[in-house]
């Protein structure tokens, strides 16, 4: 086994300090300023669409799950997420309801949002990444500027957020759109999502509505 103590001290310092050399920490005022700019950008262009790739490490599974697909987002809380591959799914939220449709099983799950159910955690993650609205109220934020991008570290302030996240790291591109998110949950689950091909073109409202097709088996897993 390779022990870290056997590394040359010089090499070790180089390895550890390399990112610091490139990253420039943001002051509190600069973070605030950045959030204002994000809010302005969101107000002028509330729609975002992107491709994504996600790696999810779960305590239930021995190996991480890798999935990819597309995402559509309309500020503040509407989104659609389509996963392609062997286990495809379509997740649609209009801010009040969340639908997850599984074409392979011809079944759909329906969740009501805002009832403090565990599913709100997943939604909060997406909204936090793509929206960042009022995020300073629920998170303690620190950040750094790296080239033209920004790295933000979000530590939850409120008990409700602490139940959902242990840590939330976010990288924004120069258009202030999420490029990468890394989330650690209290149960140890770890999700890394990378976004690409982001655009701010307008998205039709129907994208965020879902009506189950005939023959679809609909369940309400949380019973509410």
């Amino acid at each position: 086994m390779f022990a870290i103590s056997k590394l040359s001290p010089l090499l070790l310092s180089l390895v550890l300090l390399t990112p610091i050399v490139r990253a420039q920490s943001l002051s509190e005022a600069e973070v605030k300023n950045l959030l204002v700019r994000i809010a302005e950008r969101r107000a002028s262009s509330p729609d975002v669409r992107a491709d994504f790739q996600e790696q999810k490490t779960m305590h239930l599974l021995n190996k991480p799950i890798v999935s990819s697909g597309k995402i559509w987002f309309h500020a503040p809380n509407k989104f659609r997420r389509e996963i392609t591959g062997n286990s495809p799914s379509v997740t649609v939220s209009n801010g009040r309801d969340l639908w997850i449709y599984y074409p392979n099983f011809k079944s759909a799950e329906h969740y009501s949002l805002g009832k403090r159910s565990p599913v709100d955690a997943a939604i909060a993650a997406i909204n936090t990444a793509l929206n960042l609205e009022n995020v300073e109220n629920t998170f303690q934020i620190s950040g750094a500027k790296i080239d033209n991008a920004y790295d933000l570290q979000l530590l939850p302030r409120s008990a409700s957020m602490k139940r959902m996240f242990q840590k939330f790291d976010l990288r924004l591109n120069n258009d202030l759109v999420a490029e990468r998110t890394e989330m650690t949950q209290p149960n140890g689950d770890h999700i890394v999502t990378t976004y690409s091909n982001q655009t701010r073109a307008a998205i039709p409202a129907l994208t965020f509505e879902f009506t189950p097709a005939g023959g679809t088996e609909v369940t309400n897993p949380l019973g509410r």
Partner: protein
Amino acid sequence: MRMSDLIARVMAQRRVLAWFGVAALAAACFGILITRIELDSDVINMLPKGFESVEGLKIYDRDFEQTRELTFALRCQPQDVDKLEEFAPTFAENLRKQSWCERVLAGSPMETPDGIRDLQSIAVPLLLNLEPAAFEQTMAILQPERIQERLHRLHQEIEAGSPRPEFELGFDPLGIIAPALKPFAEANAIEQEQPLTSPDRTMHVFLVVTNQPSLSAFECQRLMRQVNAFRARAGDGWEGRPLEVLVTGRSAYVAEISLSMRYDIVATLGSSVLLVGIIFFIGFRRWLPLLGMGFSLLLSCLVALAAGLLVFGRLSMLAVGFCAILVGLGVDFAILIFGRYQQARIDGEEYQPAIATSVARLGRAVFFGALTTAVGFLALILSGSMGFSQLGVLIAIGIFFAGLFMCTILFLFVRPGQAPQRHDWVFEIVKKYVRWSVQRPAPIIIVAGGILLLLSVIGFSPVPPLRFEASVRSLEPKNSRAAEALQAIMAKMPTRWEPVLAIVHARDAQELHDDWQRITAHWTELQQTGKIKGFSTPAALCLSPVWVEKNRERLRTVNLPAVRQTLEEALRVEGFSTDSFASAFRLLDDLRTVVDPKAPQPDWRKHLPKGAGWWFLVDRYFAKNPLLTTGFATTNEPVANHAQSKELSRELPVPGVPMILSGWSYTLADLQPWSQRQLLIISALMALFDVGLLAILYRDFRLWLIQIVTLAFGIGAMIATMKLLNLHLNLLNVLSFRLVLAIGVDYGIYVVLVWQKTRELEHDVAGVIKPVILAGLTAVSGFGSLGWARNPSLSGLGIACAIGIFWSLLATIFFALPAMAAAKPKVWSGQ
């Protein structure tokens, strides 16, 4: 020797002996009071006996753990909701550290890992308690292909991004816990709808079970002192705007009520004595007799209290209100007797003859007055309520002693050598009025009769209605912090009215199980047909020894080692972490243990950890005796009238299952006919007694009729006033009618008996009208002072009586007197 002469002689010549007698009596009463005093502050004991619903309340109150439950609520400003969420666990942890705290529920147990683990721990007993067909279906889940298929599907759903498999596998990794708990979940749907955080997140509720050894008043006071000390420092660590810490619950109420009893005694007795004293002084300009009157009244209260303790052993909180009522009533006798004594002195009689004259002339009226009042109050025994029965008996005893003391001890406080009052402006005014009403009765009869008739028409007509309030709130103490906290919590939390309780006591576990299975089936039908909104029962937790044994037999046929092997293999194939499925393996081990024929039948009580939040739910269903249980039926709307309670008593029971229906709302609705019967039948019986007594006493139809009409006017005007002032009847103040009737009869007796016998109107009629007016005003003050009481039953009763006596007095003075003068004219001495 006549009794009046004997009394006069003892009071005039054996004063020291009389004082010794008084001291001995007082000492004996104090001795009884100190050694025996025990007060019952339980509001339930004010309700009548003989009603199943009342008995049910007593059982629920006595045998179920929830009576030791306190509800805490933290209320913050809307801006601080996140801070409250963060502070709530700290507050809950501080609560748990308190010496008086046994258990705390700070959130739904289903939302915490501990709560889920606790629920999993009772899965085996509940699994074995499934109906055998359902158990068979559940066992099918353990077939190898079903295990593989389920885990494969869950894996695919995880890959597709569904959050559901994570919840499902976290709670039920093997797939048999959910079916085992399905009956439990279904039977508790209503309970689970009750969140502990308000929808606007400004309030967080905590349920606490205390370890207080009893619910006695002193124990509750002791607990609440500790709770209030905790409350004072409960906000430590809070950084937001002001945070309110509210507390309510049975102990909070009992502590407040028992403390308010002390206030009620001091405030009502104090104000009553003060008001009565002022009126007495205005009437007679004497302090010493006033002191004597107060002393005699207190002594009669003391004697009645001592006698009551000897008779009942324990006195209700309501009974302590008798002191103020007794002062209001007993002062009548003092005023009448002393008024007549003073008049005799003005007429030139010496001390001893004046006493003899006073007792001789008014002793009979005092005796009959005491008799009618005592009978009126003794009629409270028919109410069936222990509190009211005691009140009636105490007042009946007290009033007799008050009558006796006013004819005797009162004169110990009258100085023999004191000169009589020279100028009495009250008497002069009364004399002028009596002269006017005797000489020209018609205008007074027309005016007073017209007003009283109009009020009586309003009073006895169905419109506007006299509202009857049957809500629990009508019994809550005024300015109660516990009541305010409860209201604040009810206002913030989702609306749900009190359910109807169904108490079932079985002889053994199997009977209990069978009873609740039948009740659940019946109530499901009622729910489906819309007759009830919902229900929750302990059915799933009532274990059936027969089913458990049958299911154990079936379980022995399942190859559990093979199931374990299949699970391990399926986990490996699907890539699941074996560590995450530890609870599934534990469950299989538990199942292997229970199939052992030598193993006892599993009992969920032994598996559920002592600190589990689920005990809050369990304690709602099970009493300390596990065969005594209760279920809850939620009606489509709050139970507010007798028709609803009648319908529920028809619909909810199941033939062959002994069941007691109860709950505060249900009981109060159930008692409505009792209250109305109180108002109508018992009052009518008493009225018949009075009517008969008056007929025997007067032996004159016209005078008798005048008296009856006067009484009707008094009651009619009283009801009209209550309607116009929007004062509602409640279960307790309906009793005021008989009291008003009794006192109204007294006034009539004093005036009519004197009118019948007198030849000197100036002396006798004016001489009795003045004391009657003073007595009436003092009675109004005495009863009105009960309005200060925090106990709503006492204050409501006092206010209603004060209104009724006021109108009875007016009817006697302004209608009965001129009517008698018109019907039986007499010549004024000046004419």
